[in-house]
């Protein structure tokens, strides 16, 4: 671990000014990912700007019935918030499905969205990795890729985004707010993450030096009946090998509105809009849930050892939507 400079910011403009667009500087949130990466040498920032004490930890309803979540709200506070649990239960479930109690007490919402992939080649500085060292190659494609992407990947990178929280946020049309030296800006979560293509090292559409200040969830009555289901290789404290955030509004046995997002299948939380289109107006029955999943997963390009994810996601979609439909029918 090399020496680095550390400054704590008192307010948002001060934080942005402290970073100053320096490519060797990083914002420090809870540090649950960045500090690990600094220990292993994946990240070697010259300067850290600590933003964890910025006044951005509020979680409050918006006038239109949505929710505004400050970027430094901790995962623990987000999951415990009564309005989150009432209006967006899948979001609370997703947060609680991640990490451990201790990590959730430290981790922030902004940091969660910008955390890096846990691909074992990315985290090992002795291995090639196009994301960490552009142009060095991707050993995962012909090597270990059991938990790598089946959707939206390229030959240059097949890593998956590790966030659980982001999957639920994607399903609920979250909008990410940020601040730059030139003023504030917004990006829909769907547009935050860039396509992998041949530039897997370019991960987000945020302008250089931008500080994520919060996430806004628009009103979504459908989200009141929602669920997050995560499958992993042990019961706790592991990243997903496949997850689903789903919300369902059923009336008279017909799907009026559906929200669906997948985790651990792509370089970003994967909003399953194709499946949503198939579901809307369809009978709330298992065969239609399966057809919706198949429509979304038709784009899947599995590698030799991760094809099980296509089966897993199909089964998960059917299981979670069936449970929500049964609830609606009760």
């Amino acid at each position, binding site marked *: *671990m*090399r*020496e680095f400079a550390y400054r704590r910011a008192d307010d948002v403009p001060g934080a942005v000014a402290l970073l100053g667009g320096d490519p060797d500087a990083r914002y420090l949130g809870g540090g649950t990912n960045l500090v690990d990466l600094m220990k*292993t*040498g994946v990240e070697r920032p010259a300067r850290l700007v600590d933003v964890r004490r910025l006044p951005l930890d509020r979680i409050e309803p918006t006038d239109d019935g949505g929710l505004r979540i400050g970027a430094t709200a901790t995962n623990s506070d987000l999951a415990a918030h009564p309005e989150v649990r009432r209006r967006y239960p899948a979001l609370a479930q997703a947060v609680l499905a991640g990490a451990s109690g201790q990590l959730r007490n430290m981790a922030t919402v902004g940091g969660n969205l910008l955390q890096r992939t*846990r691909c*074992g*080649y990315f*985290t*090992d500085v*002795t*291995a090639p990795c196009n994301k960490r060292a552009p142009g060095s190659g991707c*050993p995962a494609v*012909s*090597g*270990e890729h*059991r938990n790598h992407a089946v959707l939206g990947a390229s030959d240059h990178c097949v890593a998956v985004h590790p966030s659980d929280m982001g999957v639920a946020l994607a399903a609920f049309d979250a909008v990410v707010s940020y601040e730059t030296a030139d003023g504030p800006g917004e990006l829909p979560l769907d547009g935050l993450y860039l396509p992998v293509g041949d530039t897997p090292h370019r991960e987000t559409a945020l302008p250089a030096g931008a500080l994520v200040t919060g996430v806004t969830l628009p009103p979504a009555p459908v989200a009141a009946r929602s669920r997050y289901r995560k*499958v992993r*290789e*042990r*019961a*706790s*404290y*592991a*990243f997903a*090998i*496949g997850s689903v955030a789903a919300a369902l509004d059923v009336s008279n046995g017909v799907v009026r509105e559906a929200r669906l997002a997948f985790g651990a299948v792509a370089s970003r939380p994967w909003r399953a809009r194709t499946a949503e289109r198939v579901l809307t107006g369809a009978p709330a029955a298992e065969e239609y849930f399966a057809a919706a999943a198949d429509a979304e997963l038709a784009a899947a390009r599995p590698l030799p*050892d*991760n094809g*099980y994810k296509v*089966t*897993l996601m199909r*089964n*998960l979609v*059917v*299981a979670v939507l069936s449970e929500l439909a049964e609830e609606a029918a009760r």
Partner: protein
Amino acid sequence: MTTAPTAGRTTRAGAVGTAHTRVEGRDKVTGAARYAADLPFADLAHGHLVLSTVARGRIRSVRTADVLDMPGVLTVLHHGNAPRLDTDYVGMLGVPPDPTAAVFQHDRIPHAGWPVALVVAETPEQAREAAEALVVTYERQPHDTAFHAGRPDAYPADGHMPAVTEKGDLEAELAACAHVVDEEYTTPEEHHAMMEPHAATARWDGGRLEVVDSNQGTTWVADDLVRMFSLEPSAVRVRSEHVGGGFGSKGLRAHQVSAVMAATALRRPVRVVLTRRQMFSLTGYRSPTAQRVRLGADADGRLRALEHRSLNQTSTVWEFVEPGAGPARVMYDADAHRTANEVVRLDVPSPTWMRAPGEAPGSFALEAALDELAERCGVDPIELRLRNEPGRGPVSGLPFAGHNLAACFREGARRFGWADRDPRPGVRREGRLLLGTGTAAASFPAGAMPSTAAVTAQADGTFTVRIAAADIGTGARTALTLVAADALRVAPERVRVRIGDSDFGPAMIAGGSAGTRSWSWAVTAAAEELRDRLVPGAAVPPEGITVRSDTTAAIGALTPKERHSFGAQFAEVAVDVTTGEVRVRRMLGVFAAGRIVNPLTARSQLVGGMTWGISMALHEEAVRDRASGGLYGADLAGYHVATHADVPAIEADWVDDPDPDDPVGVKGLGEVGIVGAAAAVANAVWHATGVRHRSLPIRPDRVLRAGGPRV
């Protein structure tokens, strides 16, 4: 309360057999207990190892100049400047040293993560920064790390037992059998992953080398250092007060040797602590195994043919045999009986002993095959095992010193509710889940090794026991306190046990499930003699009265017998075949493991082993990247051990099973808890789903690929 069962001794109430919390428990939970890397030393320097990034080749250059200019850097040790070591010897456990520990002796790289240099600096941060900055160039050569069955370069190897045993005409018997099982089983590379990383501080003090370490045997490590550095035995002292887990991995490793080299070169204390990632290539591991089991039985399940072959990998520099075929030499007899352990040398780190070496992976294959045979014969799996209990050692022909497996199964079956079990697979449903139960047998050798101990009576009426035992988290210090108290016929509060210091004299390591038995024997011998010497009513002189013991002759006089602990494992699982998730719902283990010294820590040991069995069955797997030859995800995020949420209610208990040939009646239970546990889980997964999983771990993707009955 219990009674001493040993024949010829006075029956009395004592401390042995009653539950005692750890004597050092308060120190551990309050942080007062100092571990190896915690102890302060004046003028301490810190070393950080540099490991090879190639899997095979030669070191071309070590560019020390730039690093030596970095802040705080004191020296860089490597093959070009390190002192030569003697590795041509056989150590205390009867094997030559693993050359991975004898660092910096040549320019050859036999595997990824081989130690190539030690950077020493004033602070650990400076040492690590400089170590990461050190440029080492290599001549890279093609490597081969592909472990699989059927390697043409595999060869039979002895290790601690003969490579091959055979009797009878296997093919003829198999051909004549009503039921035959012929299957291949695999287990992956598994790592010890103990909590406390390896750490050592070395310093010279008045002409003596002192090493403060975290290890499983101070005289073991001291003996290796004496031989490797060609020192007088009296010139080396190794201490290891508290140890945060060992599991077989904490003997002589690169950290102690490089620390001694640096302390010698710099003439000041030097500490070397391994990182978690370094531990994955420097401290041993359990080799993957590829096993083939062939069983032939007559119509009612009596074995006529048994073959168990087990292949493991080892490094090109050290031969280590993971004797998976060993359990079959104890558990089951047959007219035709063949067992073989084979190894293949690959460009991989050296494997080593890991909790129940041989028995853990071997019992998975053998006990899963027994379950398959039970299915084919239509015989209950417990009944099948009872029908095949050997009267004598199947290979040795020796009598058993006690064979209480049947009692374990009877008691276990009663408590687990086995009698109500429907043997049909894939028929118990609970919502989306399929439920099943499984069982397996367990055994582990019960040995004693020569040890020395000293017991001192002090003038204030207290006693001090000194023995180079190791408490690696097992509760050994507490157990020996109880044993000594009973032998002295005093309350445990009057006894202080000091361990973890090679100056106390030779003693067995914490290993082979033989620590408590070996040490208890020596402590009892010294304490009983001391008691005889103390004159009732007479004052103890200020310097105390000390009696020393050495059990070498007594243990050498033991009649050869098959001496083992046994156990019966039971598991219930729930399987979601739509997601591939397997969860263990409950486990029960009933063991015959000699006289239980401290029920509190004994249960903890057994439950710990069973927990590891769950982990082995469902989670643990180190994945080797063929292209680089190194591990993929070599950290505790990538290497999954069972979490609390994976571990259900686990019950461990025992049947009365004192060893009549042991002064305390002890057998040993450090390892038998993991044996058979993974097989019980795998057998339960079959009972739940109707699918046999013969490769561990039983991951969700494997369950999904295998399919199963639709729920």
